[in-house]
């Protein structure tokens, strides 16, 4: 608990308004510290405005890096294949992760199952740069998420609404991504989730102090964190978006809706021309408010991934409903 208050009440995000250097997490002179909230959240800050791409081989990782990915997500099967093939989806083979880490110099992320803290320990030992505790894999624990404060490596977690995002941050997540519906190529759930999170933050900002206590109860999140979000008008960590982004226009849409950056899963390597599509999505994400640039980026990309309408998915196959 002290961890949580320290890092959130430390108002990491509002530090530029704080004229006293080092009022929090004062590390003392000459004693370097790893794995602090600032260091963990800081890497996510550096990814802003960028595209993080799912890759399943070292060759794909290289293609992603060359196309301008800001990081890659190493996994065994992209969500569209997990969906098609079914079965239990787990952490990737360490050899595969090693190969991907070796092949690129941009940050490498990897997925662990919800609640599977040993998969997370393994990924930390493999020196990945970020762990995604992800609903795309089969949950290992239907009650508890991983205690992410326990790790030096930072975590990103999915959320469909503000309460879920704040619970993940309370558990130590250093970055949030709206979930969307992975492996569909249907952006509608991503839109719904980012609009929900941003809308709920806007509502909090309009509440008076006495109302925030009730808001914290309803959001099922700690009061201090809720009050910080109300005060700052944003999460204390970076908010990316994920799940269903398949085109440059999809990416620009999510950026215009207020995402700090974009995860693209199946959308790139399940398309006709991954190199061109990857570069185009990077460009559209950077120039998201310039319609002419997004139009240019959208030309001549060949087939987009085929896609599945989320409405056609029976409820048990909706990944966004995993995690709570």
């Amino acid at each position, binding site marked *: 608990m002290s961890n949580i208050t320290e890092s959130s009440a430390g108002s990491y995000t509002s530090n530029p308004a704080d004229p006293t250097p080092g009022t929090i997490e004062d590390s003392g002179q000459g004693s370097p510290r*790893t794995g602090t909230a*600032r*260091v963990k959240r800081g890497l996510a800050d*550096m990814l802003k405005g960028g595209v993080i791409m799912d890759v399943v081989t070292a060759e794909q990782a290289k293609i992603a890096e060359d196309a301008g990915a800001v990081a890659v997500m190493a996994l065994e099967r992209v969500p569209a294949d997990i969906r098609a093939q079914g079965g239990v989806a787990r952490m990737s083979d360490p050899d595969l992760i090693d190969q991907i880490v070796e092949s690129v110099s941009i940050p490498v992320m990897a997925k662990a199952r919800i609640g599977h803290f040993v998969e997370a320990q393994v990924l930390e030992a493999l*020196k990945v740069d970020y762990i995604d505790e992800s609903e795309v894999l089969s949950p290992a624990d239907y009650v508890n998420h991983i205690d992410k404060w326990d790790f030096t490596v930072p975590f990103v977690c999915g959320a469909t609404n503000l309460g879920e995002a704040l619970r993940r941050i309370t558990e130590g997540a250093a970055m949030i991504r709206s979930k969307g519906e992975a492996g569909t190529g249907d952006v509608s759930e991503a839109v719904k989730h980012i609009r929900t999170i941003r809308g709920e933050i806007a509502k909090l900002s309009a509440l008076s102090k006495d109302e925030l206590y009730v808001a914290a109860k309803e959001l099922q999140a700690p009061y201090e964190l809720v009050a910080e979000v109300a005060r700052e008008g944003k999460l204390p960590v970076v908010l990316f978006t994920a799940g269903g982004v398949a085109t440059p226009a999809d990416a620009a849409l999510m950026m215009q809706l207020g995402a700090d950056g974009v995860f693209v899963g199946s959308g790139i390597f399940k398309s006709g021309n991954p190199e061109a599509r990857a570069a185009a999505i990077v460009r559209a994400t*950077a120039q998201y408010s310039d319609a002419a640039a997004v139009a240019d980026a959208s030309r001549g990309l060949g087939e987009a991934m085929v896609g599945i309408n989320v409405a056609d998915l029976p409820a048990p196959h909706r990944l966004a409903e995993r995690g709570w």
Partner: protein
Amino acid sequence: MSAAVGTTGDEAAEAAGPAIGVFALQGDVREHLRVLAALGARTSAVRAAPDLAGLDGLVIPGGESSVMDKLSRLLGLAPAVRAAIDDGLPVYGTCAGMIMLADRIANPITGQQSLGGLDITVQRNAFGSQVDSFETRLAVPAVSADPVHAVFIRAPAVLQSGPGVEVLASVPAERLESGHDCGLATGFVPVAVRQGNLLATSFHPEVTGDWSFHRYFLDRVVRRAR
């Protein structure tokens, strides 16, 4: 938002505050804009060559240098910034910004270029992966009487620098990832350097609340060049 927060006297000359752009293709642009505005600068985001007009200084933020390089060339910003550097525009680069300002990158991705201007060779991710990222306090006498709070995130380091480069701060070379010790002459590796109007740090003052490097840039680099 008073200019008095960060600047020292000369209110009349500084009434308007210097015009500082932040290179805004990718990375932690917002954090730099907030610090600079709080220190009294008139800030703007630089996304295309025309945005450079009228600037007194430019900050290149943290982010992924290979992405910044690619986008800056694609959008025609790279040659314009390089020309401005050659014309003496003060520029401060943090982390990826340091890599962008370096004349030489020891470990670029395929085809990666830098803007250049600083006579240094940098190593990307010199300290290892994210689990090795760290924060500490650094003695930087030229910049601040108190130790400076420095956050290193998959940070670069300066492996070699030319005679015109002033080293402002260093860390023990033992922090470098093994195998990246490319024959440094001393047991220390530079992490903050200045050459004329160009300033670069391996670390990120913009995420700490310690504004001493931004003050130094505004007061000691930009103001002198104005």
